[in-house]
């Protein structure tokens, strides 16, 4: 029997996971899909930015160390007036990169959440995402 997907916290919600580490994205897709989310994965910054600008996502998980364009550059482009698009979804930085307090605060100011990936298991990441509503 098919589970009642409407009862799941992520049902009907679209997540874009911009993550170049295949194992990590695989784990996130698995955990988030189990919670009912529709997860799309892209593996570099440029594709990520294009995906954000073309499609509507409820939640975006953005890594910082990415090929072609870093997550910070993606953030910068998203917030530049030339992009001219209001981001509808919530944006969460997911990184293992250690940054100075100041950089971290600057990044946090442009995002809705910040996760150190090593400090959270995929299940905990899913719980974090659920809290965003």
């Amino acid at each position, binding site marked *: 029997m098919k589970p009642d997907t409407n009862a799941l916290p992520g049902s009907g919600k679209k997540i874009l996971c911009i993550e170049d*580490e295949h*194992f*990590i994205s695989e*784990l996130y897709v*698995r955990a988030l899909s189990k919670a009912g989310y529709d997860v799309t994965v892209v593996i570099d910054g440029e594709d990520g930015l294009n995906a954000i600008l073309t499609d509507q996502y409820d939640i975006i998980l953005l890594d910082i*160390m990415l090929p072609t364009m870093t997550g910070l550059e993606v953030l910068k482009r998203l917030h530049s007036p030339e992009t001219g698009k209001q981001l509808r979804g919530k944006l969460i930085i997911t990184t*293992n*990169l*250690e*940054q*100075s*307090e100041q950089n971290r605060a600057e990044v946090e100011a442009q995002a809705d959440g910040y996760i*150190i*990936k*090593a*400090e959270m*298991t*995929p*299940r905990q990441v899913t719980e974090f995402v659920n809290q965003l509503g």
Partner: protein
Amino acid sequence: MNHLKKFQNQISLITTSFYLLSLAGVAGLTWYISRSNLPILFMIAVVVAFIILASWLFSYLTLALALKPLQMIWSAILHVAPEHNSVAPNLNDIKIGREMVESLTLQIYQFASQQDNEQLVQHRDSLVQASSVLSHMPLPIFVFNKQQLVTNASLKALEYCRIESSQLFGKPLFENLLLEFPNELTLESWLADVQDNKLTDSAYWERVRVRFKADNSLLHQCDVAAFYNRDNPSGTEVIVTLFDRTTQYNQDDQAMSFIALAVHELRTPLTILRGYIEVFEEELGDKLDDEMRGFMHKMQASANQLTSFVHNILNVARLEDDQLALHLSEENWQETVNEGIENMLLRAKILDKNITCEIEPNLPTVGIDKTSMYEVLNNILDNALKYSGETNDITLKTYKNSDGLIETTITDHGVGIPSSVLPNLFEKFYRNHRTRTQIGGTGLGLYLSKAIVTAHGGQIWASSKVDQGSTFGFTILPYDRLSSEMKAGDSDIVRQPHGWIKNHSLYRR
């Protein structure tokens, strides 16, 4: 000389006139008396009295006229003498010898002003010389007056700040320069102290971050030296010199960047390991026998332990780079403890240890940085697990102590710590040498815990007896106390408002 001659002539004329007038008076009086029938003796007495009176008047007038110029010149000399504050003589007061007095006082004034000028020139020369030395010193040097306004600066200082002298002079230094000090002992706090208590003093700070109002993006790292001299006659009260150490400190920072890179590389496989272990736990947890489930938990606990270790390394690096920032907020301590020890409970279970928690009910809320407090709890519990030896019971107690602070103790009944070792426990890389070969660890956990607890305004300690076990304890402040300290202006927390250091309520480094 003509004026003196004229004065002599004037005096001679006046005295001669007076003399003749007196003679005429005596003759007139004698003639008048001789015509009357008065006795001869009386006549002689009257004439003698007249002569005496006229002589006295004559000498008085002569002296007054002759001494007046001397008095005027005397006043003029006193007027220009540096130790007297007398007023200048009014030359209109003198009628006889005025030209002479005018001429002489003018010469006195000119002579005095020449001396003044010489002194002034000499003073100005030394100032110019000092100023020139200051200007060309190849260091950014700032000179303040008593009001702490910049009165002078070296050319290097202007170049360094990228501003014109007009933007710097006559203004407080911090209008152009933001100095972030590594702790609460700032230039400003030092100045406040020396102005109250010292005549002269000097101070030196290392690793001060310097930013410029002119270009906020530039960050220099400097050592700062300051000299104070109260009421210096030159008006210079404070001299501040910057020694740019940006290159050297940036190299240190690159070492930090190396740690950041290493941490990133360690974290990625850790994320993956922990992720897949979680998948196994979810999918196979019910299907595995006890032994296999035990193995899985050991894998999980070890991965978690490694995560904590990576976190510790990073925080020690941050601490030493003065980058460990705590964001204190109001938290429920009971919840924090329960959340913080969750990982440790798993590890304790695997090691067959039993952690008992005794938490006093209704504890007041605390002002803490939650993540950092998790680390403190984890590090101390990790220690207790490592050193509990053959014994199984570890007790965590938390309560409000007699000082009104929230005290947390963690007690094990294991190998204990020799008293000779106890004082060094919280030092970096320090480990009990006796046990080094038996028990793993880096010697960073307690060092970091102490730094975190101290930054929260608390204290950490250890007591132990060999073969009987150890107790580690620490205190933290209830939130209301922390916030009242803030309002009371505790220098640890409240920063001065104009940019010497970051101003952030509940922000501690």
